[in-house]
């Protein structure tokens, strides 16, 4: 029954048009970014940066380099927005529409219902990020050659400058995409937690995004630098740390465990609230 119920939740989730807004927005945004990289001074600046460090720009302006450039802003901006939107909908939208009352007139336990909904949300988040990563790489490959990967970016407090062979680059790209799934699932879980309480779906989404942005803002206030580990956004950066040489695997593992614990905590808090509340029209 568990898998049949999970299949139901996936039907409901992927049967809705609004579920695909995120996918559509990603395709659009990635196309724009790709064209901007190719036809503006952006590409020349990257070439200059490579040349300034003694590397041949021709060897590293590649599909892998460009796909990471395309993915980065979307992981920071669009991905949180869409997973929070879907996470906020998971329970609250059903309560708002009245279908939750129909479901809960049946002999399913509230905890089981939340489990299948949460799992469906996790599958959505994973599919969203994987599609995002695959589309970026696919689009970049159309316009750029398959060569070495160049990575440049900043995460507090380090600057990452990495040069990789195509094989190394592809492996790291896959690993970083997998870690991005954990980020997406974490934010989805926070939105899901709010969604379990008596509120509108939009309120659950806004609260989850507010939680994310308040973390981000406070994390970057110099006073809070010693307390980085307390901010979820600090742990979200671990997807990019894989490109450091050598990669700080212990720190990455710590962040991933923290994010997994955050997901579990959000689920438990949501489940308690959902278990205690009265479901009324």
């Amino acid at each position: 029954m568990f898998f049949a119920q999970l299949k139901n939740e996936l039907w409901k989730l992927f049967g809705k048009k609004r579920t695909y807004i995120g996918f559509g927005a990603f395709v659009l945004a990635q196309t724009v970014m790709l064209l901007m990289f190719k036809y503006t001074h952006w590409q020349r600046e990257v070439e200059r940066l490579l040349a300034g460090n003694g590397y041949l720009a021709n060897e590293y302006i590649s599909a892998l380099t460009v796909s990471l450039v395309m993915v980065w802003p979307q992981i920071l901006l669009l991905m949180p927005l869409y997973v929070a939107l879907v996470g906020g909908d998971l329970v609250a939208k059903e309560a708002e529409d009245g279908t939750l009352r129909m479901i809960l007139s049946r002999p399913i336990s509230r905890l089981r219902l939340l489990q299948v909904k949460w799992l469906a949300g996790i599958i959505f988040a994973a599919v969203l990020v994987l599609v995002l990563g695959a589309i970026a790489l696919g689009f970049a490959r159309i316009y750029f050659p398959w060569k070495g990967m160049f990575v440049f970016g900043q995460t507090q407090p380090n600057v990452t400058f990495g040069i990789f062979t195509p094989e190394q680059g592809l492996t790291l790209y896959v690993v970083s995409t997998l870690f991005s799934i954990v980020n997406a699932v974490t934010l989805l879980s926070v939105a899901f937690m709010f969604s379990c309480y008596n509120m509108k779906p939009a309120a659950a989404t806004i609260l989850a995004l507010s939680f994310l942005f308040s973390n981000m803002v406070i994390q970057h206030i110099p006073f809070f630098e010693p307390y980085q580990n307390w901010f979820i956004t600090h742990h979200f950066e671990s997807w990019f740390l894989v490109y450091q040489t050598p990669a700080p695997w212990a720190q990455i593992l710590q962040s991933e465990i923290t994010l997994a614990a955050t997901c579990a905590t959000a689920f438990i808090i949501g489940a308690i609230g959902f278990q205690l509340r009265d479901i009324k029209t």
Partner: protein
Amino acid sequence: MISLQNVRKRFGAIDAVQDLTLTVPRGEIFGLLGHNGAGKSTAIGMMLGQVWPTRGEVKVCGHDVTTQRARALARVGAIFETPAFYDYLSGRRNLEILCQYSAPTPPERIREVVDWVGLTGREQSAVKTYSHGMRARLAIAQALLPQPELLIFDEPGSGLDPEGIAEMRGTIIRLHRELGLTILLSSHLLSEVEQICTRIAVLNQGRKVFEGRIADVKAGPGRVMLRTPDFAAAAAQLRERGIITNSAEGKFITLSEGRTTADAAKVLVEANLPVDGLWQEEQTLENFYLSLVRGESPANDQ
């Protein structure tokens, strides 16, 4: 089938249901009546394990809903005021989804139920294309899927046109006759309840003020209508002589036990009070209900 024992539900400072004891026997069509906010939906919510009682015990099919939810609701179907579905999916897909929350249901059972409610041929269409009546039929179909022994309708006639109400009435009677189901329904539509139900309970401000057979309600004495130029004087004279216990609305009197309209007429004539008319109205559910919620004492009150 359903038993509520001293149930209370408090929302903040408000008692939605107070000390409610109710029994719905197997095989009945049981009507739960009451004004808006009387506690009908809250009581139904508690029967379905959607609302937690503050105090008391709620049993459905012999099992406590709060502690043995799966057993209690295994053979229960519910239909709500505004049937809500996943509009973007087909009727059949909705049924497949909803039945998975009860027990594995073979496709033949879904076909059988779709046929029973008369949706064959439209089950593959998206629910957003359904009329209000078709949605109501789909709601009945989803409730029938787990082969229930008990069906709970929360305001089933709300939002339906007269044709839809008549169809719903016919369906409820068919469910009872053909499938032998026990049915609990809450409604504002007294005429519908009068035609369908075998037993009723009346809630007023969260309290049960009546529970009994509808046949007994209708067999009971109706209100007595008194037409006279000076109703107040006539009512005072009748009360003084112990003929009536109550008067209302400047035209109704309630006779004391053992007294008849002839006794009342005799007293009024002896007192030289003109009488234009004096007769017993037929007892209707509406009269009975109104007398209950207005605080008059109906003869059948238990």
